[in-house]
């Protein structure tokens, strides 16, 4: 089917006005030798049969499992009003607010998003959005290089492995070194500060930024304030990779001295959708305002003195600065920033705290239930709502539980093939959507799959 309005008579009228006999004449600039071969594609599908087929395809995905999988993407309750507002065409069928006089809705919503994120992060400058947590982290690291005029970045091995892969891609021509983790003891699984200090002190290899995640990939809380002091003493910036829902209860980056915060905004009520569209967060101190990549919205006045909002400081951006721009980013994730804003406003400060603290409470229950069937935590340090547990033959057990309707988190052997010490571990998480019944079911099935005590 076609969504076009033209009747044969309309087309005829247009052709005769233009003065051509057929539409083919309009394509005469394409030389004969370069004309396309026939499009070898299926025929058009009527809406009903397409809808039926898409429903069947979606139905082949298993979203009915009791899921303990997080690893950077977290399911949260989304109040009914959120998606109803997002379905308003005035939001999702508008484009970038190039004509601010007829885009005040989008512009004010971005300004409010920047304000909400500034509250969560404790940092005053927030970009209007980036692609996702991985790309935002890479852009934050590049930003540290521009700000310090240095070319080397250190990234903790406790940063999400996919974020580290993205960093490597973006840093093709720059220097990227990994900070090892503490192997044993109460701080096991967190960034090794002794190693960090050594890396920062290497002669003739000045460091632009230090990238550490809070909570880290294993769910552990990192010594951010101390890492920040070490980085600053070496003239480097601290880039904190944050999970925004955790910021309802955890100390914000602005409080522990981070210069830049980056992260994935998906937990702010955005569905998992097998990878996106998501919401890349970047926030920074006012000192770094000229280095932040991507769009910014600021408050101003119109000719009558009415308050209004507009894209600002565009001299950083590609459409003005071209090859000298802070980044090549153009399209952003405005609709996802709106979704996150509505979700945050629907929950409010107390609701957000309830969500974060309920996840922590459920995670405590999960820890107890799994420990009772012989799956103790791998690490000893404090965590919020995600942690690793030791399970012999973790991969095979994960597989067996899947057949019994339990998605037992992430087998770390799959995500971190270069960490043999974690080959028998599962990374599991709980949120407010995790029920006590699901926890009991996980523990029971785990016991029966491993022969542990029930």
């Amino acid at each position: 089917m076609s969504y076009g309005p033209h009747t044969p008579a309309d087309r005829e009228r247009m052709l005769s006005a233009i003065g051509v006999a057929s539409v083919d004449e309009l394509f005469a600039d394409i030389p004969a030798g370069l004309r396309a071969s026939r499009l070898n594609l299926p025929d058009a599908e009527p809406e009903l049969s397409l809808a039926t087929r898409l429903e069947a395809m979606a139905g082949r995905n298993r979203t009915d499992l009791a899921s303990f999988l997080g690893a950077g993407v977290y399911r949260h309750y989304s109040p009914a009003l959120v998606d109803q507002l997002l379905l308003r065409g005035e939001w999702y069928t508008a484009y970038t607010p190039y004509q601010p006089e007829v885009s005040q809705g989008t512009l004010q919503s971005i300004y409010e998003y920047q304000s909400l994120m500034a509250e969560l992060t404790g940092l005053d400058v927030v970009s209007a959005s980036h692609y996702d947590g991985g790309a935002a982290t890479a852009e934050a690291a590049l930003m540290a290089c521009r700000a310090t005029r240095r070319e080397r970045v250190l990234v903790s091995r406790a940063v999400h492995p996919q974020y580290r892969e993205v960093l490597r891609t973006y840093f093709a021509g720059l220097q990227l070194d990994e900070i090892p983790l503490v192997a044993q003891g109460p701080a096991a699984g967190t960034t090794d500060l002794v190693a960090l200090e050594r890396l920062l002190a290497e002669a003739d290899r000045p460091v632009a930024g230090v990238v550490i995640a809070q909570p880290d990939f294993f769910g552990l809380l990192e010594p951010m304030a101390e890492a920040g002091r070490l980085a600053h003493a070496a003239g480097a910036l601290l880039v904190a990779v944050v999970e925004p829902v955790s910021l309802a209860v955890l100390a914000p980056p602005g409080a522990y001295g981070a210069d830049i915060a980056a992260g994935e905004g998906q937990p702010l009520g955005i569905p998992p959708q097998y990878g996106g569209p998501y919401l890349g967060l970047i926030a920074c101190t006012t000192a770094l305002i000229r280095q932040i990549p991507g769009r910014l919205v600021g408050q101003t006045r119109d000719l009558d003195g009415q308050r209004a909002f507009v894209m600002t400081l565009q001299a950083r951006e590609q459409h003005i600065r071209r090859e000298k721009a802070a980044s090549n980013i153009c399209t952003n994730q405005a609709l996802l920033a709106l979704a996150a804003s509505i979700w945050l406003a629907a929950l409010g400060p107390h609701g957000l705290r309830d969500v974060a603290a309920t996840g922590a409470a459920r995670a405590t229950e999960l820890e107890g239930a799994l420990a009772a069937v012989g799956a103790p935590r791998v690490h000893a340090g404090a965590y919020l709502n995600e942690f690793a547990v030791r399970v012999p033959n973790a991969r095979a057990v994960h597989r067996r539980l899947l057949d019994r309707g339990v998605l037992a988190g992430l087998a770390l052997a799959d995500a971190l093939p270069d960490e043999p010490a974690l080959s028998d571990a599962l990374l599991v998480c709980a949120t407010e959507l995790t029920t006590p019944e699901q926890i009991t079911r996980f523990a029971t099935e785990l016991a029966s799959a491993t022969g542990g005590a029930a």
Partner: protein
Amino acid sequence: MSVVGPRLQPTIFEQSRPGRGVARVAHPPKDALARIPADQLRSAPPGLPELSEPDLVRHYVNLSQLNYAVDAGFYPLGSCTMKWNPKINEWAARLPGFAGLHPMAPDETAQGTLQLLWELEQWLAEISGMRAVTLQPAAGAHGELAGILMVRAYHLARGDADRTEVLVPDSAHGTNPATAAMAGYTTVNIPSRPDGAVDIDAFRAALGPRTAAIMITNPSTLGLFESRIGDLIEAVHAAGALAYMDGANLNAILGRFKPGEAGFDVMHINTHKTFSTPHGGGGPGAGPVGVGERLVPFLPSPRVLREPDGTFRLERTGERPTSIGRLRTFVGSTGVLVRAYAYLCSHGAAGLAEVSDDAVLAANYLKHRLAESGAYDIPFARHCMHEFIASAATLRRATGVRTLDVAKRLLDKGFHAPTVYFPLTVEEGMLIEPTETESIETLDAFADALIEIAREAHDHPELVTEAPHGAPVRRLDEAGAARQPDLRARPTAPIDTPCPD
């Protein structure tokens, strides 16, 4: 717009009152956070707003009504392809099986989505004439970065490390030179011909042993197909370089020109332009990239693979060491790609060809209406593709009214403005792209409005230079916004501490 007139809104912070709001989630036990060291906890709650549900919904409904949108009217923004966004696409992306699927879910639990992605890759490869497609890039500029990083990997894999330059026409989207710089290349800007068109001979002359790639938009940002593109690609390859095509203007050439067949080595596709995924007020988009044979080994990871038994899986980390790696987390913006897939299936081969035929027909009709009126300059008389350039240069000399003024006056007449002052190579330029989904009545009404504005420019210039008059706000002080940046609101009411439970 609202029946009682557009209403500017106080910020959501200004509407906050402590104690308002709805409990959405039960309160957790009081000791929920007791096991976390005090120095890791926040000392005061974030200053988020507290609103009742009616106030919150009205805030966002009233804000939305300050926006112009495709759902409200004609949006002829050149190079942005603001076509109709079919409603079934929104429905499809929200199906619980698609929306609720975790991106690290085991392959066997994700077969529906993996099949959809694999099939979408085949559709896009056929449309672009490319050998293979990656769906990972999150936007057009992200796709450009993927493409140029693959070009870099290709040259380095051949031991050809001296290629340091990327050639870009000065009429290119700003993302092209910015991408080349981000990938570590020096951008060489190739000046356009005096009439603003791409100078193919200057390109050929600039090619050499230092050239890694050229980046070119075809049809060009002037809405013209480069007839000599074949010769240029041949010269590029003879110089040992590769040819990148910016696919922003793919909506003109579906079924008529396959860039891969013509010799392009790599191109990106903007699903939010050609394949109807909504622009969302600036995003999200998706920027799949198609590559020819030579670049297949370097595609970003993970690829979607089909096994001999007909099942699908994601490539594993490190499985293909030649890959340039990841450009973002996970496989891609799947929710956007579901919409693009629905769009492609609903059109089929014939429907897609009709899209481009109708888009080009509509652009030429509109161009003809304006040319015939004499109200504006039409710098390129020949047939255009899916968009065309008009200019207010003569009008400005006669009346002092600039393109910017014309754009603002169009808002009063119920239309979004075209893209203005792009490309930078045309004086007082307007890039007008009607798309295939607008009726002849709408095209006529838009032409009439533009012609009337030219008349107003002669008779009552202040009507145009002071426009808009009917929009929610008048022209803004943009310089003031940049001089003293105010980028965030501050909470006006203190937050109760602790939680009142």
